[in-house]
């Protein structure tokens, strides 16, 4: 059995780290908004971004999905309705190598030069935050595609909340946090037991 947020998390990770839509099978616009599977990587063992035990090799563009809260939609559902809507807050927290001494651990991509981007981590992080927003909020990426089985719960909307923001967390690391509301609908409450 699966918990309520298992399926939504799998879909979000498919977008962020699995290259969902990057092959064009979900359409050209989805392909344009998608993230290649080699852009971001999940932090080892889904560690918190603040954990200093995350080694330097895993830091740059390593991400954590932080499920922060869960609540009802503004218009409460009829409790007897078989279809229920909920909103879950998910913070996407991405780490970046920061400072000249950390340039050896930069996960450089494309035309990036490690020694340069390590000195410009904030610009890089916020630029990436927009890529994440485009991908996560693009319906064809979070919705079921023709080749997918029907998701339950199903994600019916993803919205960025507030602004992406950066902060230094020591050890030559920068964390960039983007908050998203993930709106889901589930149909069979009894089936979400772990």
């Amino acid at each position: 059995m699966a918990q309520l947020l298992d399926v939504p998390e799998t879909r979000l990770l498919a977008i962020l780290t699995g290259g969902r839509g990057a092959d064009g099978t979900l359409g050209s616009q989805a392909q344009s908004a998608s993230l290649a599977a080699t852009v971001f990587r999940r932090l080892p063992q889904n560690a918190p971004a603040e954990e200093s035990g995350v080694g330097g090799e895993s830091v740059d563009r390593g991400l954590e999905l932080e499920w922060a809260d869960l609540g009802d939609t503004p218009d409460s559902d009829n409790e007897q309705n078989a279809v229920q809507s909920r909103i879950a807050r998910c913070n996407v927290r991405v780490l970046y190598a920061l400072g000249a001494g950390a340039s050896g651990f930069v996960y450089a991509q494309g035309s990036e030069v490690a020694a340069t981007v390590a000195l410009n981590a904030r610009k890089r992080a916020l630029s990436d935050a927009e890529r994440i927003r485009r991908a996560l909020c693009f319906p064809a990426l979070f919705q079921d595609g023709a080749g997918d089985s029907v998701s339950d719960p199903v994600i019916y909307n993803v919205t960025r909340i507030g602004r992406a923001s950066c902060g230094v967390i020591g050890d030559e690391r920068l964390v960039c946090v983007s908050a998203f509301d993930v709106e889901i609908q589930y149909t069979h409450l009894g089936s979400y037991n772990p």
Partner: protein
Amino acid sequence: MADNTALRAQIRAAADVGRRAAESVGARSTLVTVRVRTYSGAVGLATSTVTATTDTALDPRPKVTQVREGRPSYFGGSILADSGGRLLAGEYEVGPITQDFPAGGYTPAELAPAGSSSRRVTVLLSGDEYQSGGEEFEIVAMDATRPHRIMLQVGRVRQGS
């Protein structure tokens, strides 16, 4: 006056003999291994796999001492945690390790090889204090300023590849 590298090497060799003697009488129960894992891509990518693992067991075995019980950590653990104790990332002091000389010893770079987004360096401690198979640590401090020895401080990190 010029630096006397020849004499320094001789003293390092003598120090190494003394450290080897401690090992030979069974006084060094912890095996210290520098482990370097090379991945096919960035560590943590779904497509990345370990392509090579290189272990360097320090010879002679250096002294290993717990410097503090450790800090609460997501990657905490060990025998104590297995028995219901707290999840702590223990910190240990490793050394003295003989500095490099013609017939032995180690350079700082040999003890702490360069890492990267596709190369993970850990220190594996094996012995009575640690779980079966040893536990992995990362170097959090190094002192190679003394002429004949290097001291390391290591902290527990995630285990395995």
